[in-house]
Every structure is written in C-alpha cells, then in structure tokens.
C-alpha cells in the first residue's frame, strides 16, 4: 500500500466510523446511476452505464455456433470482460488478468443462475446448431465497483437485444428478414458492499476499494432469491455482516431493477 493510500485509509476509516464518506454519501447510498441503451448500432444489443464516474459499455453480439455436448438443445452464453487500458492507469494491454476473469465470471454467474436468457429458444438444430450470445463488457473508466456497473450494463444490453431471424432449410442456416427480441425471463441485479473498519458500505468508490478489507457481492433475481454470491479481497466477514449485506442487497437490488427494467 502506498503512503498516500495509507493516509487516505485513516481518513476514510475515520469517516466511515462516523457514518460518513469521502464523497459525502451515506453508507447505504449508491452513486448516481445513468443508463443509456442502444448506443452501438452494430451490436445486437448494447448499453452504457455510468455509476458515478465509473463507466462501462456492454455490447451483445449473437452468432451461430455449436451447443455444448451436455446441453445439446440450449444456446450458449459467454461473458468476457476487457479492462481496457484507457480506463485506468492500473490497466495494461494484454489477455484478461485474474481481475478481468473474476469480474466476467461474477457477471456470468448472475445472468446464468437467474436463468435470465431462455437458452432453449436459441436452439436451431439440437446437438448441431444454436445461437451463441456473447456479452462483452468494456470498462471505459474505472472509479470503483465495476461489478455492479457491469452487471447493470449487461442486463440492460440483453433487454435491448434483437437477433436476426434464423431458420433451418435443408440442414442449412438461412437468415430471414426481420428481427426477434431476445427472450429475457429474469432480471438479476448485483449489489456490492465493502467492509471498511468493520463497517459495511455499499457501492464502494475506487478510493474506498483501495482501503477496504474485503467486498461481498450479492446478486438477487426478480423474485428476491439470491442467485450468486462472491466474496472478494483478502479480508474476512462475520456471519452477521454477511446477513447485513444480504439485507442491503435485497433493498438496493429492487430499487435498481426498477430503473433498469421498464415494464
């Protein structure tokens, strides 16, 4: 930890102790969330999310591919994260590192376990041809809590995804005129809490992430069930703190969901 971080750590910890934060937020408040959909015309679905100064762009591409042998009649979902070097002085070009892989897998787990996409509808020929949904998360500006921002952007992009109409004619894939809306059945929302000085704060900023002991991400689906959990960082939680984070996630996820999902 650098000297500057160390000094800041003291200040942030002191503030959190008094129920305050560096940017003036209360411990249980998110930064402002701004959402824009359909920002990339070439993508089948896209969304840009601003969470305070954190900025994430998600593009959904849909292609033709083969199913996995153990799920012959289901389409394929893949999530990839690029921590683009222009987003932070900490990011370097190159293949995804462990942070990018972890982030992608947390977003993936939320979407997959909530059964968000009706994968059976993406099957064209069982065992042979299915649609593959690529969710590519592009982090554009890193100011903390990439997990929640990425999960919101991914869901918003999926809700906005239209695929070409495919049909099988004489064993070959044909593209028909028109579009199909991707069938989305559930709306998982990830809520991340960070532990600083024994207290929990929601939606940590980058400065807060630099001094936190650990974080806990709880993803809830639309019926209020937990569908993914991830503890991160080298610290520890008590059982009571975990249940507190679950409670926070329950409230926050339904607030955020109302913003992302318009009926």
């Amino acid at each position, binding site marked *: 930890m650098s000297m500057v971080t160390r000094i800041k750590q003291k200040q942030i910890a002191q503030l959190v102790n008094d129920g305050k934060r560096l940017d003036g937020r209360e411990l249980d408040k998110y930064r402002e969330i701004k959402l824009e959909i359909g920002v990339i015309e070439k993508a089948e679905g896209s969304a840009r999310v601003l969470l305070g100064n954190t900025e994430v762009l998600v593009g959904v591409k849909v292609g033709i591919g083969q199913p996995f042998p153990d799920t012959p009649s289901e389409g394929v979902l893949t999530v990839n994260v690029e921590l683009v070097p222009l987003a932070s002085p900490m990011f370097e070009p190159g293949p995804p590192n*462990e942070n990018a892989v972890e982030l992608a897998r947390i977003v993936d787990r939320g979407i997959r376990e909530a059964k968000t996409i009706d994968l059976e509808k993406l099957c064209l020929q069982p065992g042979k041809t299915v649609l593959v949904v690529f969710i590519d998360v592009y982090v554009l500006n890193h100011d903390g809590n990439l997990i929640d921002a990425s999960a919101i952007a991914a869901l918003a992009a999926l809700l906005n995804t239209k695929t070409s109409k495919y049909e099988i004619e004489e064993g070959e894939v044909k593209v028909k005129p028109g579009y199909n809306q991707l069938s989305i059945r559930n709306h998982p929302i990830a809520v991340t809490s960070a532990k600083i000085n024994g207290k929990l704060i929601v939606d940590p900023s980058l400065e807060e992430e630099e001094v936190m002991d650990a974080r806990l991400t709880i993803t809830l689906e639309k019926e*209020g069930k937990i569908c993914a959990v991830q503890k991160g960082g*080298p610290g520890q939680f*008590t*059982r009571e703190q975990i249940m507190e984070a679950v409670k926070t996630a329950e409230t926050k996820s339904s607030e955020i969901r109302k913003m992302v999902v318009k009926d």
Partner: protein
Amino acid sequence: MHKSDEKLIDKNGLRMDGRKPDELRSTKIKVGILGNADGSAYIEQGKNKILAAIYGPHEAHPKHRALHDRSLLKCRYHMAPFSVDERKSPAPSRREIELSKVIRHALEPSIFLEYYPRTAIELYIEVLQAHGGTRCAGITVASLALADGGIPLRDLTVACAAGKVDGHVVLDLTDNEDKKGQADVPLAIMPNLNAITLLQMDGQLTISEFEEAIELAIKGCKQLYEKQKEALRAKYVTAEGEEE
C-alpha cells in the same frame, strides 16, 4: 450448469451415496508428504484427491512484485488433465484463474504475512482427482501445508460447501449433487476467530435457505477442523521423543 429436480434424496432422507443431509464425506488427511516442498499436505475427501505444497518465504520473482511491508502470497489452483471425466487441458482455465484468486484471499487473512516483508510465499494446489468441492478441500489442505511449512498462522483455515439438493439443504456436495442440485455455497472460516474468508454461491436460494446453508457449512468446517488438527498431531506429536 444444469439445475434440475432429479431425485437425489431417497425416501429415507438419504443421499445417493448413503449420507445423511448434514454428513461430510469420509475424509483422510496427511501432513508432510513431499520431500522438496517446504510444507505439504494431502487430502482425500470422498473421491477428491488433492495435494498442496508451499515454497518460501523466499525472494520474490519478479522482484518488482515484492511488497515492502509484507510477504507476497502467490497461489495456483490447478487440476490435473486426468482428474475429470473428459481430459482437461493443462493450461489454466478461466475457472482455475478465478479459483486461484479466491483461494488466495481465503488464506491470506490467516497468515502473518507482515513477518516476511519483500519475500514471496508460493502455494500450489494440485487436484489429482475431482469429485465436487475441490476449492474447499483445496483450502483445507493448503492451510495444513502452510502450517507444515512453519508459516506463522493466526488460525487454520478450513472450508466446506453446503447447498440445496432435491429441495433440501445439504452438506459437502458431490460433483453430481452440484450439477443437478439447485445451489452450491462454498465457504471457508478461521474457526477460532469467527471469520468467514471465502463465500461464493451459485444456483438459487431464498434468503433464509442461504442463511441455513451458511450455518450448515460452518458446522461442516468445524468437523473438518478436528480432522486437520488430528493430521497435524499425527505428524508432529508422534515424532516427539523419537530421533527428531
């Protein structure tokens, strides 16, 4: 991952391998089994067979990764190509990259890393055979390898999963139960410090089921902790009075 409602618990309330819902798989642990490593241990938990070894503290490579105020913990969780039904490529998968990270973070709180500034401790977990719950068994055995290597620890770290199978909350899921069940909650604790250092979940659970699963997993961890201590005693207490 599949989640279906296939029958995994029979009418007597027993699981496919005959266990009760809150019963661990039979577990054998041995400490200190590799000659070259500074510390090592081996665990068999059901059909899981996992080796862990540590090297260090020694000079950090590359040097610029060294930390001025504590030791750098490096961790690699890796599965042997023959450890699963279909041969697994030996190159690290995305799953292994993620697990290496969460395992490192699960063990880090237990180690007095500040005793060894500018050094590195390397931890290797090799899954020789996998049958569900390998990240947890990997943590349980890795903590013993650290202890065997003489690394000062605040407490042992022990891990176990609970989950939901066939509508019931059960302990220590097998591969099949994980794939066909409704949820899996791997968890690690430092049993004497009331600290949870690894927590993940996939599947779907209500909040009260989740709480129940955490409680059950902690119970499982505490039973495994007794086995960890037995294994350490088996190596170090019997050596007392002998040549060593």
